[in-house]
């Protein structure tokens, strides 16, 4: 028995897989899943749904990646990167599924790097600029609660691939929601300054709720989470003021274009290059 054994056992079954330090999920979520698009399924609709959910995840991951080397504590660097990597993983699987379903055979990078802002279908809450750490965890709380409810339903989707991706995502999102909820409570019930910042963040995200619930009506689940968290944090429930437009229809804030310019710049500057 040695203290080194623990690492061996953590990595057991994955000895050749250096991915064990990569983040979550060592198993191929599509292992044993039939990847043919089932007969009778509206393939165009499936592809569109996958792209929209992938866009949410990619844009969310990009915002989390912006925290790298800027997090309030080193432990938070690791945590935010884990969450970002989970979302990036979801995006990649969903883009791949979309390329198969829409018959174009496009790969993940074709969707991520070679579409323009108006073609992105992510909800606008995901694209809002980073803000402070209070905004980061409040947004994460709302988005992960909403996406978790959505993925919960999708895990019994008739498309076995989307169902498998969602089932894997449920575990990840449950953790994201927990991480965010713990932080919102801490900040809401911490110091006067953290309370003020968290309250402001709640007000900033509230206008974007409507568009979430139009895309997938998880009103009950999200409100229940927010009630519980704001109750524990001593924060008021955010007041919902509807804002016209919807990222799902390609109507975005002015913040998406610069985000994508950064994300896509190198890939587009080198046509024909391989990375």
């Amino acid at each position, binding site marked *: 028995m*040695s203290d080194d054994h623990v*690492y061996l056992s*953590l990595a057991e079954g994955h000895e050749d897989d250096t991915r064990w330090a990569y983040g*979550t999920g060592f198993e191929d979520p599509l292992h044993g899943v039939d990847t043919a698009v089932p007969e009778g399924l509206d393939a165009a609709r499936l592809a569109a749904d996958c792209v929209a959910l992938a866009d949410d995840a990619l844009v969310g991951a990009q915002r989390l990646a912006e925290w790298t080397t800027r997090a309030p504590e080193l*432990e938070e660097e*690791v*945590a935010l990167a884990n969450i970002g990597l989970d979302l990036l993983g979801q995006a990649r699987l969903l883009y791949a599924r979309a390329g198969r379903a829409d018959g174009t055979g496009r790969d993940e990078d074709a969707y991520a790097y070679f579409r323009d802002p108006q073609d992105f279908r992510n909800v606008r809450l995901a694209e809002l600029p980073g803000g402070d750490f209070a905004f980061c965890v409040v947004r994460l709380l709302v988005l992960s609660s909403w996406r978790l409810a959505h993925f919960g339903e999708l895990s019994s989707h008739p498309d076995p691939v989307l169902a498998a991706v969602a089932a894997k995502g449920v575990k990840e999102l449950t*953790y994201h929601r927990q991480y965010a909820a713990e932080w919102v409570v801490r900040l809401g019930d911490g110091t006067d300054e953290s309370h003020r910042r968290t309250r402001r963040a709640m007000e900033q995200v509230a206008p974007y709720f409507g568009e979430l619930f139009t895309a997938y009506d998880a009103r009950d689940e999200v409100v229940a989470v927010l009630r519980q968290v704001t109750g524990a944090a001593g924060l008021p429930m955010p007041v919902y003021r509807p804002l016209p437009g919807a990222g799902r229809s390609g109507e975005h804030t002015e913040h998406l274009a610069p985000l994508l310019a950064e994300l896509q710049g190198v890939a587009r500057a080198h046509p024909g290059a391989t990375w």
Partner: protein
Amino acid sequence: MSDSAPGTAAAPDTAAGTVPALRQGAPRGDWPLYEVFVRGKRGLNHVHVGSLHAADDTMALTHARDLYTRRNEGVSIWVVRSEHIAASTRDEKDPFFAPSADKVYRHPTFYDIPDDVPHI
């Protein structure tokens, strides 16, 4: 949630809003140190893997999961405030530290690390 540190529990809790870290002489809101123990799989002991900083037990568990297991599921984690660990005396004073009693964390030759870097 654990109680606060022994040093602070002894102090009368008068100044509302004064945080333990402040009273311990860490004026920057620094989080206390926790030791982390991980059971990699069923049938093994929890083994000390390192330490981290966290404001409370819940955060310590979250951080431990993120840092030391990269959230591998099925892993059991213990965290404990470092200052809550009682330890035996130093090695030169105590026969308790015979090599056999010591085996959990003293295996210098266990690591079979090649001298050359891994081949690409």
